[in-house]
């Protein structure tokens, strides 16, 4: 069965690119437009991996990650942040929130697949 990924980004173009890329690699991808939407979609089922943008309207990525980690079924599900910066501060915030790792934007599709494969195979 295909592994499921929830991809959250407020940018439609990034969302499409991520969705298309991962689907092309055989994953089943659900897209969400911001943290709130992501949380809503995450509640319905348990995804194998969550990819989230940081800066989004309504609910940002860090908040989303914290909320997810509070849900029993997401205690151990890997969450990767898609972020435009890789500063220590960001990493500490991400780690504190419970993120598994990060991927710096801009990234290319190959890189995305490479990282996702590393996490969920």
């Amino acid at each position, binding site marked *: 069965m295909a592994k499921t990924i929830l991809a959250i980004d*407020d*940018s*439609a*173009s*990034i969302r*499409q*690119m991520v969705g*298309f*890329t991962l689907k*092309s*690699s055989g994953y089943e991808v659900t897209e969400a*437009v*911001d943290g*709130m*939407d992501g949380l809503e979609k995450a509640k319905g089922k348990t995804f194998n*991996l969550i990819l989230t943008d940081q*800066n*989004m*309207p*309504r*609910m*940002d990525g*860090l*908040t989303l990650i*914290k909320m997810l*980690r*509070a849900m029993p079924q997401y*205690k151990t599900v*890997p969450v*990767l942040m898609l972020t*435009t*910066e*890789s*500063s*220590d*501060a960001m*990493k*500490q*915030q991400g*780690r*504190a*929130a*419970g*993120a*598994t*790792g*990060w*991927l*710096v*934007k*801009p*990234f290319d*599709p*190959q*890189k995305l697949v*490479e990282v996702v494969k*590393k*996490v*969920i*195979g």
Partner: protein
Amino acid sequence: MSIDMSQFYQVFFEEAAEHLDSMENLLLTLDIGSPDAEQLNAIFRAAHSIKGSSGTFGFTDLADVTHILENLLDRIRKGEISLREDMIDAFLAAGDVLKNLLASHQGDGEADRAAAAAICGRLRKLTEDAAAPAPALAAPILVASAVLPAPTFLGETGLDVFFQLDGHANAEAAEGTLDNLVAELAGQGEVRIAGRAASADHAWHLQLIGQPDAETVRGILEFVARNDSIRIASLGEASSADDGAYGFFDDAPVGAPSARTDEDSFGFFEPLPPVAEANKPVDAADGSYGFLVDTLPKPVAEVPAVPPPSEPAAPRPVENEAQHEPRRAVPTTKAMASGDTSIRVGVDKVDQLINLVGELVITQAMLAQSASQVDPVEFERLHDGLIQLERNTRDLQESVMSIRMLPISVVFSRFPRVVRDVAQKLGKQVELKLSGENTELDKGLIERISDPLTHLVRNSLDHGIEAPEIRAEKGKQPVGTITLKAYHQSGNIVIEVGDDGAGLNRTKILAKARERGINVHDQMTDQEVFALIFEAGFSTADQITEVSGRGVGMDVVRRNIAAMGGRVEIDSMLGVGTRMTVRLPLTLAILDGMSVAVGRETYIIPLGYVIESLQVEPGMIKSVSGVERLIQVREEYLPVVTLYEIFRVPGAVTKLESGIMIILEADGVKAALFVDAMVGQHQVVIKSLESNYRRVPGVSGATIMGDGRVALILDVSMLVSIARTILPAAA
């Protein structure tokens, strides 16, 4: 696997354009003294989002500008730099540059690289200047952080160079070393700093453009960098696995057990910096986050249990709240979550649908006509069915047309910027009031009304609103008001551009008209006099100004509006103000028309121009130089336009008393159109005559009647203007 990124470009273009628009709107409503945190966040997010996606899709020029923009915005929203008027100017200018770059990527015009470089410099300077008074500790680093990764343009050759500086705990020392290094490397090619190390644990990323020799470069680097940290790759080919492009937190959940063991072959599992080092304030390191470290590191396991609202107070509570509270949508921006309830469809598909419905309407009309010839009692069910069909067809048509409808706010949204820029240029103070932004009209009209409306607004700013001193002298508020108002009225959309400025001076306009050799007389109504400003080459301004005197005159405005099947009227009161009223059909595809017969032909007159129709009675017709040219309608003498003469229609009624006069008004001028008979009123589907034929003077389009025949739609503006030329001086 290779993914063709170009398939996402269109979405990116649309999204970036939306972000730029919302950014501009927000900037224009921002209260500079005490900017709203939500608005600042939304502006930042717009820049941030463009940066993220443009970088991903390889539009580095966009990414470069937004990067600097975002940096400054970020520091403003965090309260590190206070917002100033000149920053708004710069942000707006940056928006313009971004729009230009965006357009150039879409094949629309040339990218203005000079402007892009200039705005980057301007924004950088604003950041530096604003940062200068800040505590000495932060300042140099902040300045440095604003340095832009140089743009890499396609086709460039060179090297990507990554390295960590040897033993520099402090950023200032690192800067000095780097300066020397850059000077040294300059011999190898153009050096660009593509990524700065946030700390000694991080890699620097330089780009050498040209034909640098990798070994020589490595030799230079080995003096200053940790030898094991140097990585050199051809430009753009660097696998960034070990440049920190991604990574995993080693103690956070990771599904794949092999993740940690891959370390050697990939080397990207970058552990967090040791706590001792991290305890330094990091907020200034790259200028984009503002937290102090000691509040943050916590065992990961604990965090999930704590719901976000009860997070421990951070040193800057306000900001913390902004980070963690779900953000309210800013009212002026579109709700983002609308993704699920709408679909994107190409305009061509919608147009095809509209065409098909148009055909259906015609077929339905044909059926109705045929059925009217059979006995309604005998064919009762057929009749009922056809009535039902007519109703359904109309409903269907209306629904389909509504797909193309957009709110006028799409056009109005550009005016805050226009008013601001023009008022600034003219040294005037103007407040813009908008109303009825949700009034809908056809997308095609939206696109075409934008320029004429802009011209009217500029005209009001330039010639209407007085300078603040003059307004004060007249006892008016120094701040003038321009009102833009849209509403629906009897199947039309009405757009008003009003100002509380000087008003139009009747005497001055008449004098000017005489000077220009335009045929005028003192008995002309105010409407007629004011309409003169729409004449070609007419300008009431004492001097041509940069704002409105740009060759495109009000005559073009009127012509463009007329070409859309609309008209424009002026009301004005001297010293009080002026109101220009634009009336447009709701759509370009359907028109309410009156059909008239001339000889064997049927013509359609757009109903909006028709004032009344009347039978000619003896004594109404007055002849001028022996030719019957005028008709007296109550107090007015109107020129008579005989359609059969103008169109040379054979077999038409020629005796004026035997036909019908249709009184028309276009562009503030009335005329009587003589036809054989009135046939009826219809909604007609407008068809282009020009797709297979040429433009015909006096005809604005064609339609298909119930019997399947073509009827031409009259160009009333043109016919009325013919009337004026055939009319000798009426005075």
